């Protein structure tokens, strides 16, 4: 009710005032290059949600949203160029969709006063809002993913992983190495043995790693992969007849793209997630009516409801909700990047809010604060059914090990603050 009143008040304000500029949401997308298969559905979902808001609601708080797409090709240099070329357009928030681009943009967005949202990727310790004033990584980060996987396995094993063997197959890059420290710390706590198996980019040849898995017989395999590495790993796991229900990928290893090439062999494979799957939500009815059937979809419309489309749509939804919060806090509809940052820092996602948006249980409930830019770190697990070619959420969004992750975040963000002479805020 409060939100509706605020919306009415803002709309009235807009009607009375002068014409306002659009709310600009740059989309650093990658629709070309080797990773386009992952970039296209995300970019489509991101753009389609804002199109829906414009067509159905007249924008956000009465101001139209404008998505400016810039092609990065998943290339860090191009990503930085995209940032530089679009920031002057009144950009409210950046979602760089690449850990490499994120690292380059952290000092830039902080200096320019534009917030950046790295949902499920980027610099994990950016969760510490006391150090990273303009970077947000709610609702979950890589270390939450690692802990979420272990918590899930703890549940599967009656709370005891001692004596179990867990292998991590990872992309041999900064991204792939992210979970290792967390998994090592958790292995000390829970008594499992961790085997790490790096796979060099791009990951088309993984015979050595899977022969080792066949010899060592780990109880579970976790995967931090991207691109072709995912498809090959799932195929190789099927080839050696590794039990798929014991194979869990991070959320970047859990889309339809990753499992379809392996056919029936991928059945039962699991992946972590921080948002729900499928298209059985009231919002998708509106999406069909106002965007798809109206011929206003960003892409061919064939990605709707896929994992990565949903992720793009979820990212847009969180950006739009933060923008609404910013409008509420600032009392004006045409918010600036500084207002947007404040809105993101005060964002609260509740079940009621998601239901009201037509996306009940679409993501975890969480609250962002000045100190905590990463939300409540709730992680779920999905499973692939090869026969119906669908993912199903098989667990609730559950908490991760804040004790272990919190200490690691303090350590890493503390080192960053010391290197960059950053005075902790939020006092």
């Amino acid at each position: 009710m409060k939100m509706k009143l605020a919306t009415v008040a803002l709309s009235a304000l807009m009607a009375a005032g002068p014409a306002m500029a659009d709310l600009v949401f740059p989309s650093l997308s990658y629709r070309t290059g080797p990773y386009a298969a992952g970039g296209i559905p995300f970019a489509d979902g991101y753009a389609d949600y804002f199109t829906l808001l414009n067509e159905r609601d007249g924008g956000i708080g009465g101001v139209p949203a404008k998505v400016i797409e810039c092609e990065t090709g998943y290339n860090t240099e191009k990503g930085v160029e995209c940032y530089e070329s679009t920031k002057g357009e009144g950009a409210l928030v950046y979602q760089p969709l690449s850990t490499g681009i994120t690292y380059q943009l952290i000092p830039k967005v902080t200096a320019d006063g534009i917030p950046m949202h790295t949902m499920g990727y980027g610099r994990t310790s950016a969760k510490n809002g006391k150090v990273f004033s303009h970077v947000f990584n709610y609702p979950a980060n890589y270390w939450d993913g690692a802990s979420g996987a272990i918590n899930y396995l703890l549940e599967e094993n009656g709370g005891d992983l001692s004596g179990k063997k867990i292998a991590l197959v990872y992309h041999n890059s900064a991204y792939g190495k992210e979970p290792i420290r967390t998994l090592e710390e958790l292995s000390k706590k829970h008594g499992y043995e961790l085997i790490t198996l790096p796979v060099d980019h791009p990951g088309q040849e993984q015979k050595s790693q899977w022969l080792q898995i066949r010899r060592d017989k780990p109880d579970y395999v976790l995967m931090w992969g991207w691109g072709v590495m995912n498809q090959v790993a799932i195929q190789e796991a099927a080839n050696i007849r590794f039990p798929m229900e014991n194979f869990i990928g991070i959320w970047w290893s859990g889309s339809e793209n990753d499992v379809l090439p392996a056919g029936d062999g991928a059945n039962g494979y699991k992946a972590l997630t921080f948002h729900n799957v499928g298209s059985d939500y009231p919002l998708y009815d509106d999406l069909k009516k106002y965007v798809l059937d109206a011929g206003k979809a960003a892409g061919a419309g064939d990605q709707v409801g896929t994992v990565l489309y949903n992720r793009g749509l979820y990212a847009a939804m969180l950006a739009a909700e933060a923008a609404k919060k910013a409008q509420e806090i600032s009392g004006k509809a045409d918010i600036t990047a500084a207002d947007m940052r404040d809105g993101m820092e005060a964002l609260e996602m509740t079940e009621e809010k998601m239901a009201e948006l037509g996306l009940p249980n679409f993501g975890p409930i969480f609250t962002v604060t000045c100190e905590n830019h990463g939300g409540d770190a709730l992680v779920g697990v999905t499973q692939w059914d090869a026969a119906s070619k669908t993912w199903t959420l098989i667990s609730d969004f559950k908490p991760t090990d804040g004790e272990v992750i919190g200490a690691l975040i303090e350590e890493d963000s503390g080192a960053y603050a010391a290197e960059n002479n950053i005075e902790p805020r939020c006092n």
Partner: protein
Amino acid sequence: MPDQLIYAMEVILNGLMAGVLYALVALGFVLIYKASGIFNYAQGVMALFAAMTLVGIMNGQVPFAHLINAIFGGHITHFGWNIPALLAIILTMGVMVLLAWAVQHFVMRHLVGQEPIILFMATIGLAYFLEGVADLMWGSEIKTLDVGLPQGINLWIDETTYNIFGYGFFIDNLDIVATIIAALLVAALVAFSQYTKQGRAMRAVADDHQAALSVGISLNFIWVMVWSVAGFVALVAGIMWGTKSGVQFSLSLIALKALPVLMLGGFTSIPGAIVGGLIIGVGEKLFEFAVGPLVGGATENWFAYVLALIFLVFRPQGLFGEKIIERV
């Protein structure tokens, strides 16, 4: 027998199989280099293009559908039919012949007599152009390729080795098929170049362009033929690698796996590509098995190049390459 020795035998066998797959990619490079002296940077992209075309034809996909829809409106994506794998392979081969003709007619013909570096640059341009065309033509989503090749563990080998060693070896059925196909392919290529008129003409062009021209051999025809054969080899490599990982843009990066094979086997020898592939395959897998765990793993990519460099130091022309002696 000690476990480590048994495991090493399994690694060697898998290395040999992986080597065959590397050799399949390297063969395409060798064919073009041997006939025209061009290092074809686009060979990996040709494998991608061929595999995408094959899947597109099999699935009855409308080429350039996005472009057509954007220009004329509408939502056409498929013709509504599926084509059997064998027919689709033949049709794809037709497309690769057309591509070979286009490359020769629009690019290479105009560069006759230029420095090798210019020709190499032209193939870089060709690679990026072809990648863009493939994207526009068939879309960039990951496509499942199933031409009926078997995949997964070979149970007979698993059981037999288990009975002998008490440990069943893993050999992928797809790798066995790839080995048989590669053997047939090499035999066919050797027979073609030794026993057919066109094959002999190809060898003549490879030996000396001017001399071949003087006896009435058409350079244009031979080069179109060579690019077509390289296109066919690319199609075979694309099918093998695409079956493993799905057909996607990373497929073009398989060329990286062929470079150390070429350095080792020589740029002008078909048997060299095969032997080079086998040495690289076994070498990198054994190194990863024995040394990888001590240094954190992921040694295969760089060790393949180290191995190739070691061979280069002692035999710059590669194992089977032709020794170049220039008299002053």
